[in-house]
């Protein structure tokens, strides 16, 4: 449901103008995918729905602050959802037990540089570039994105020293931006 034809920027601008039908279209287009991410981050459907509710209220209320010259409207919506979900996670005392099967699977996906040589860098997607990283750099980035873990929590999960994890993430992000830069 990446909805490449859906006009996120135009819809957000319509929301900024008070167009309720536009907000409903946005909900129908994106609520399911947003909820999928919220459930993955928070591990509980009820809290994920609370998070989605709060995030969508913010989208409506702050729609006039969206500026299409800064970037993608869809990315702006996800930034609001992720920010709320991360706040909810940071407020918890305990981590919720989670099944990291798919994260481990993605962490194991390795590609050879030649596989991507044909793709122009402007067309490369993050997952393609992640596959080019070595597993020790890729895995912490996946845990940060899908589980919202902090450096400390990632270090504990992967049984590695904190400094090592910080260094790997930083190096991984630099390699990603190099791969993604047009």
């Amino acid at each position, binding site marked *: 449901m990446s909805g490449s034809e859906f006009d996120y920027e135009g819809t957000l601008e319509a929301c900024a103008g008070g167009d309720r039908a536009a907000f409903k279209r946005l909900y129908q287009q994106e609520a399911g995918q947003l909820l999928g*991410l919220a459930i993955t981050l928070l591990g509980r459907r*009820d*809290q994920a729905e609370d998070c989605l*509710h709060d995030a969508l209220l913010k989208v409506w209320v702050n729609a006039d602050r969206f500026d299409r010259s800064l970037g993608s409207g869809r990315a*702006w919506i996800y930034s609001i959802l992720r920010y709320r979900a991360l706040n909810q996670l940071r407020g918890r005392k305990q981590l919720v037990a989670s099944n990291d099967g798919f994260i481990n699977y*993605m962490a194991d996906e390795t590609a050879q540089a030649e596989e991507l040589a044909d793709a122009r860098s402007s067309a490369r*997607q*993050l997952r393609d570039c992640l596959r080019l990283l070595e597993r020790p750099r890729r895995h912490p980035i996946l845990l940060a994105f899908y589980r*919202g873990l902090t450096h400390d929590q990632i270090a504990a999960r992967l049984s590695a020293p904190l400094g090592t994890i910080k260094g790997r993430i930083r190096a991984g992000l*630099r390699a990603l931006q190099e791969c993604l830069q047009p």
Partner: protein
Amino acid sequence: MIPQAPEQRRALIGEYVLGLLEEPEATEVRELIEHDRDAASMALEWERHLLDLADALPAQTPSPALWQRLQQSLGWQSSVDQADSSLARWWNSLGLWRLTSAGLALLVLLSWLPGVLRDSASGPSYTAVLQVPGESARPGWVITVDASGTLHLESLVADQIPPDNSVQFWTLIDPKDGPRSLGLIEPGKGVTLSAEQIGAVQAGQLFELTLEPKGGSPLNRPTGPVLYIGRAVLTASN
């Protein structure tokens, strides 16, 4: 200190977007993003790339109540919805379900319910009796879908569930689409869902209540045992 070199700055903003920075660095970067257009654009660019990871996840259907709740929070509740809830109050005030034994309630329900609502709308109406799986003599819940398409779920039992669990309501129209969550249910308490929330009901449509971890299934399908299950039966088609 926020680095000036664009490459380093971009990577640091990436860490911020992932939620990895601690204070005071996080606040420094947040303020930079608020005041510097280039930084804001870098942050949004990271977020756009991360959409590729979000899209690797399956979408999950929100419970029908979420849209209604959003409209309430925004102060948009339409007059149609208000009419629905006043009907629900009238309906609940009858206390019909609590008057009689389960079997008698069912008989009463099947015989007069469609007639009562016939003049208010013109669609078909349905009933489903949800029973303990494999035990046809133990009805636990009754679903009625009236001619306006509104679904009422009413309890005939007062089950206790473990404190670490929730009961979740599901429907299955076509096995290839998989079950759709209709939200969490309080044991022993009914719920009313509008036609818009529930969609068109078909004869034979499956409804079930499952025992899930507290807060509901973490997946887009039931993960726990089925407590009650039943299929919709057409009771009137005008």
